[in-house]
């Protein structure tokens, strides 16, 4: 049986780095020494906050036979500046699963060290995690009601106390306040009422300023970017321009927004998804126009006319990865097939297959890309492996070639445009960041994310919200990148 592998077995390959849109949690599959592990980091939505970390150690039957610890260090201090490792405790009912909580204090890039100790010895892996604040939470109405009631009680109580203080507190024992004191008390209450109103108004303004500061400084916002299209010779050039005060072209090394890190020799990986119909995809690698890395140009491929969502993945040397978001209108005849900017550019136009327990998509070379969803429908927020294989007409597995170092690329796009993610067999992590962190430590920079091409792939992921999605799955065979498309509906 042929498998997803070139003749040389077990080639370790990595995929491009990426951030995501609307999908901030981290999912990883790989090896911690001798152990196959799946790791998920569910962010708390706000930073500083506590993330939920789940580690699945494949093949464990007795949870007590393994000890799992997790530890997170901010990118610039590493594990030397990290708190002590936390023990992940076995989750009752699933002997392979261990869980822990981790604090992330800054909205930044972290390296998560997952260590497993068991009968096969000690294994450890460094996983890049983006600690992002993505939630803007309104106060629940019941809590607002309770606090408002207490606020009214406190305000009324304060005014009453001030009235009593003015009216009676200075009187000798037993003496009743006269009319003058009562009048003064009423005046005192009025003045205090004005002051209390001013204090409440000022407090409200302060609260609003704090909320605004959180939105501006802590809440994740990718760099502002603008996509444009300009004719050049016989083609159109798509330009994604970063126009953001945080990115001036002279990055500060100590900042999380420091210099961009090339990923497989490419500073940006750009995706175009046709809006609405989701029936066209381009996966391009634009070139920075100057060392300042403010404008990135790519020749527009042959795509049907329409409005496209544009996503530009970049990763900083800090390991901080982000996806720039814009959109562009592609005119009819705007692209050209033979003018790719980069040999790894690819694009796709075509219909999709609906989800099924076993969905199959016919590829251009006659093979089929099979998605084994299984009988259970996809549920939002529930992690599961997206399992794919390439098969011939008889159902035998076929090998694939590495496409930019990976067996497969999966693009997740929600129909409403709120979610975009670029996955690979190692999960959702940034491999460039992983290599950077591994390089900074003494560990093997390729440990853990080695993806063999000699088997089917299972990509760990949880769809972040309910709704309709399209999956684009890209594989390479006989020098040609081929794309399959599937529709799915993630249930609440």
């Amino acid at each position, binding site marked *: 049986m042929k498998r997803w592998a070139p003749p040389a077995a077990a080639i370790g390959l990595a995929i491009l780095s990426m951030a995501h849109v609307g999908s901030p949690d981290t999912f990883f599959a790989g090896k911690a020494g001798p152990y196959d592990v799946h790791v998920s980091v569910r962010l708390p939505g*706000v*930073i*500083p*906050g506590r993330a939920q970390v789940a580690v699945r150690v494949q093949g464990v039957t007795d949870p007590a036979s393994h000890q799992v610890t997790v530890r*997170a*260090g*901010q990118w*610039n*201090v590493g594990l030397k*500046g*990290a*708190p*002590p490792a936390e023990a992940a405790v076995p989750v009752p009912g699933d002997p392979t699963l261990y869980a822990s909580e981790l*604090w992330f*204090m*800054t909205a930044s890039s972290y390296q998560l060290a997952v260590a497993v100790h068991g009968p096969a010895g000690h294994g450890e892996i460094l996983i890049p995690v983006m600690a992002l*604040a993505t*939630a*803007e*939470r309104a*106060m*629940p109405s019941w*809590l607002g009601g*309770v*606090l408002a009631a*207490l*606020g009214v*009680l*406190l305000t009324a*109580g*304060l005014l*009453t*106390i001030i009235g*009593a*203080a003015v*009216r*009676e*507190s*200075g*009187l*000798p*024992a*037993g*003496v*009743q306040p*006269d009319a003058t004191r009562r009048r003064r008390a009423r005046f005192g209450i009025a003045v205090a009422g004005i002051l209390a109103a001013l204090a409440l108004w000022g*407090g409200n303004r*302060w*609260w609003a300023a*704090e*909320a605004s500061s*959180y939105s501006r400084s*802590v809440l994740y916002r990718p760099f502002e970017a603008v996509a444009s299209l300009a004719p050049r010779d016989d083609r159109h050039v798509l330009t994604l321009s970063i126009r953001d005060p945080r990115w001036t072209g002279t990055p500060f090394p100590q900042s999380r927004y420091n210099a961009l890190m090339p990923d497989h020799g490419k500073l940006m990986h750009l995706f175009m998804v046709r809006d609405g119909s989701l029936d066209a995809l381009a996966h391009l690698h634009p070139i920075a126009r100057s060392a300042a890395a403010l404008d990135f140009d790519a020749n527009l491929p042959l795509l049907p006319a329409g409005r496209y969502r544009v996503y530009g993945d970049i990763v900083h040397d800090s390991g901080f990865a982000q996806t720039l978001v814009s959109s562009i209108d592609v005119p009819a005849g705007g692209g050209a097939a033979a003018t790719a900017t980069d040999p790894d550019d690819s694009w796709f136009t075509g219909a999709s297959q609906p989800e099924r327990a076993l969905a199959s998509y016919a590829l251009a070379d006659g093979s089929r890309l099979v998605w084994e969803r299984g009988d259970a429908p996809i549920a939002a927020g529930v992690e599961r492996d997206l399992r794919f294989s390439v098969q011939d007409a008889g159902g035998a597995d076929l090998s694939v070639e590495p496409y930019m170092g990976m067996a497969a690329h999966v693009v997740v796009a929600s129909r409403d445009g709120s979610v975009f993610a670029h996955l690979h067999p190692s999960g959702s992590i940034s491999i460039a960041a992983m290599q950077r962190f591994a390089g900074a430590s003494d560990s093997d920079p390729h440990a853990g994310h080695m993806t063999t091409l000699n088997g089917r792939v299972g990509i760990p992921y949880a769809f972040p919200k309910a709704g309709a999605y399209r999956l684009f799955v890209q594989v390479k065979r006989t020098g040609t990148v081929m794309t399959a498309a599937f529709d799915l509906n993630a249930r609440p």
Partner: protein
Amino acid sequence: MTTAAPAVAGRHVVAQTRAADGATQWSIYSVLFASTSVILGVIWDISWHRSIGRDTFWTPAHLAIYLGGVVAGLTCGWLALQTTFAGSEDDRGTAVRFWGFRAPLGAWVCIWGAIAMITSAPFDDWWHNAYGLDVKIISPPHMLLAAGIAAIQCGAMLMTLAWQNRAIGDRGRLGRLYLLAAGLLLLLVATVATEHTQRWDMHQSHFYQVSAGAFLFFIVSTARASVARWPATTVALVYSGLTLFMLILLPLFPAQPLLGPIYVQIDRFMPTDFPLLLIVPAFALDLVMPRARGRINDWLLAFLASAVFVVAFVAAQWPFADFLMTPWARNWFFASHRMPYSADPAFQARWYRMNPPDQLSLGLPIAIAIGYVSARCGLWWGNWMSRVQR
């Protein structure tokens, strides 16, 4: 209704006598304990966040804070019920009305503070969920908590004050209890102002402007309402003594940072900063204020107090700040070498570097002007406090 004068005098004497006998003063000791527990809990909690970082509701520091709130709230709640429903005529006569209930004014302030503290808890919890764990002292829910704490301390002070003002016997002992309560309140004010009174800013106008604005009000008002000698010096001593106590005590206990990034590896609880030398301007105020009383009115006295405070404070704190930057201050007593785990390299590089003086020729007169407003308000407040009987 106004009661006939002889009867008033008679009951007054009874109330004054009871005020001094100590039989019913347990409530004063109880609220003073609450006031102490709360502020030491706050200082402990700040140290906890600078040393360990991670916490839960159930840390000992939090429990000390809320123990103070509970003790004050229950004590004063019981006092209100007892006075209202089972109190003697004298008890009710030395109480103020509140929605049909009766209790001493300070008790109502304590109850208000306890409710404010309770209110701040879900507010702060939601704040953490909405904006993340706030790692600073000054945030809206923390200020509501601080208002509750301040109310408990203020209530404790008013309760001791009313007893002091009514007493005809042991006024000295009650006067010292009042100054202890006032010193605890001053400690809270200094703690809240910490972010603006750092030692590397002690050559800058802002430091003296904040100090004059925040501290003069409390020192002057306390002194005005006190019957004891050296009242300003005493409250400054309470503040300095308790701060030093925590400064020496906290590093005796081990602590390990549990949050990252950890820039400084520490193994002990972070001490408080060395107390500000408020004792010097307070002593100067104690020299000036009694002598000026009756000779100049309060408007002029406020100006004099402010000028004395700023000049004396600059004269003491300025050179002392230089000393705190020297290796001589890097020991268990001055503790200037203790850095929180979260001090990043840039912060560490500035740790022993004084920020240069700014426009002091303008800044210090502004500090005196701010201090003037603070002192004048303090005199008003002190005059009112000196009349509090209930």
